[in-house]
């Protein structure tokens, strides 16, 4: 192999190696890219971090429309808690503010850090479901055997497309005690 070709080979190999390293970075770039695609409702659903606190503003209440909101509660990995919505279903008018109480209880003798992850079905709802107050905005800490009533205040934006008549909001409580200790 002539020196000339050898040099060309090394140069090309370097370039290709850079491409490979860039693709490794691209793998990580897919994470924020995924959020963007989710935002567009293209490939995925709402992400927990999308669900932010919004200020209370006055909407025109649409008395002629009724939307059934269902509340679903799940405990991940049999987290030793009690967790339920005080109402499982609520008929609401878009534009009107409602408060629903959730009951959560730590059944263990130790303090617990838990986080409730919300999810909507159908996924597009997340852009119309505005929360003013929610226990899902941050991690919740429970003392041993502590029980809490946690209010969630929300409004459905009247811009919600007509076809949606039943929507579901799910909360899954994850026990993050161990993770928060490690952090």
């Amino acid at each position: 192999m002539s020196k000339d070709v050898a040099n060309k080979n090394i140069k090309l190999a370097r370039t290709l190696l850079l491409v490979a390293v860039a693709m490794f970075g691209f793998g990580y770039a897919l994470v924020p890219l995924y959020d963007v695609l989710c935002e567009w409702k293209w490939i995925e659903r709402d992400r927990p971090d999308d669900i932010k606190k919004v200020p209370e503003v006055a909407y025109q209440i649409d008395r002629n429309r009724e939307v059934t909101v269902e509340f679903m509660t799940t405990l991940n990995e049999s987290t030793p808690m009690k967790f339920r919505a005080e109402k499982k279903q609520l008929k609401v008018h878009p534009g009107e503010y409602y408060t629903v109480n959730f009951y959560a209880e730590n059944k263990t003798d130790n303090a617990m850090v838990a986080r409730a992850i919300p999810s909507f079905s159908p996924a597009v709802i997340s852009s119309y479901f505005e929360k003013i107050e929610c226990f899902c905005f941050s991690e919740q800490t429970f003392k041993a055997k502590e029980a809490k009533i946690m209010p969630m205040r929300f409004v459905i934006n009247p811009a919600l497309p007509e076809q949606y008549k039943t929507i579901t909001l799910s909360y899954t409580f994850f026990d993050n005690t161990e993770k928060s200790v490690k952090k």
Partner: protein
Amino acid sequence: MKKTKQLSAGLTLMAFGLGTAQAEYTLNLMKGVTKVSNDIYDLHMLILWICVFIGIGVFGTMFYSIYHHRKSRGHKAAQFHENTTVEIMWTIIPTLILIGMAIPATKAMIELDDVQESDMTIQITGKQWYWDYKYLGNDIQFESHLDEASEKVHRTAGANPHSVPHYLLNVDKPLVIPVNKKIRFVLTSADVIHSWWVPDLGWKKDANPGFINEAWTSVDKAGTYRGQCTELCGRDHGFMPIVVIAMEQPEYDAWVEKTLAQQKQKPDLSDQSSGDLMAHGESVYLKNCVACHQIDGAGIPGLVPALTGSAIATGKWESLDGFLRAGTAKMPSFAKLNAKEFAELMTYVRNNLGNKVGDTLQPKQTALPDDDD
């Protein structure tokens, strides 16, 4: 003999093509019992026949060529190596066929996606390794485990699966739904990803932890429909079946009433004989413990501790009770069990699986003051 007959019948059917298949030999997709499943079946058959047709064309040409254009028959090779017209044709024609397929496929997809205007909603939660159903309209909620007969047979070496009716496709508590009602399912998981599939309903949907998915069905015909988890979810993935019973509305209403009444009933805390305690305890064990601790209590070396001779299992029952309720980092809490189940389970574990503590625990002993829900 019967098996050989079935086999030869199956092979003959195979030779005649899939279209003539009988349900008994299950060579083809089932039509199912919903409009969607029927539409999907039709779409399946349409595409299957298109493929068969194209296949006959391509393979026919190839085999004609293999037979006639062989050197041993003295065929001299032609030297052509391109033909623009032909190449354009065999690009455009498949494109048109694909467009023809895409139209009905899009229609079916839109139909499947339309979950609105439903009559009721059922929450399905996948867990390792059973399903949990919650009816959002009323307060019905129950777990649905593999039935005891299948559970025992698949865990016992040398047991005969043929002796169990609906082996691995039967559950202790089936999901009950009314016919001709649009039922919306909301699916999630409490641990890993599962997938809920009943072929007769025409679809499967993943249950993802922390997120919900929705799907719907409207069953045309009363009956029992069986399915399985279809996303690998660990060791006992093959052992979490689904049974759906579709009932006429009046029967369904009666079922709801009965189930609600049963749910409201407080567990019977009266004393039981030690034989009853153990027999019931075995059922509780098979549902809740066997997946990890195994049928003989030996556990899994290196992963799951044995119950046989375990200090916790055979020590003071009060500490065992506390242990089960609290759970550990590796074992979930079983606080969901009631006092009766605790008494039965502990009596069983302490006097079976190679253990001989010799005590019997009665439900009254294990009842907690706040055991109200």
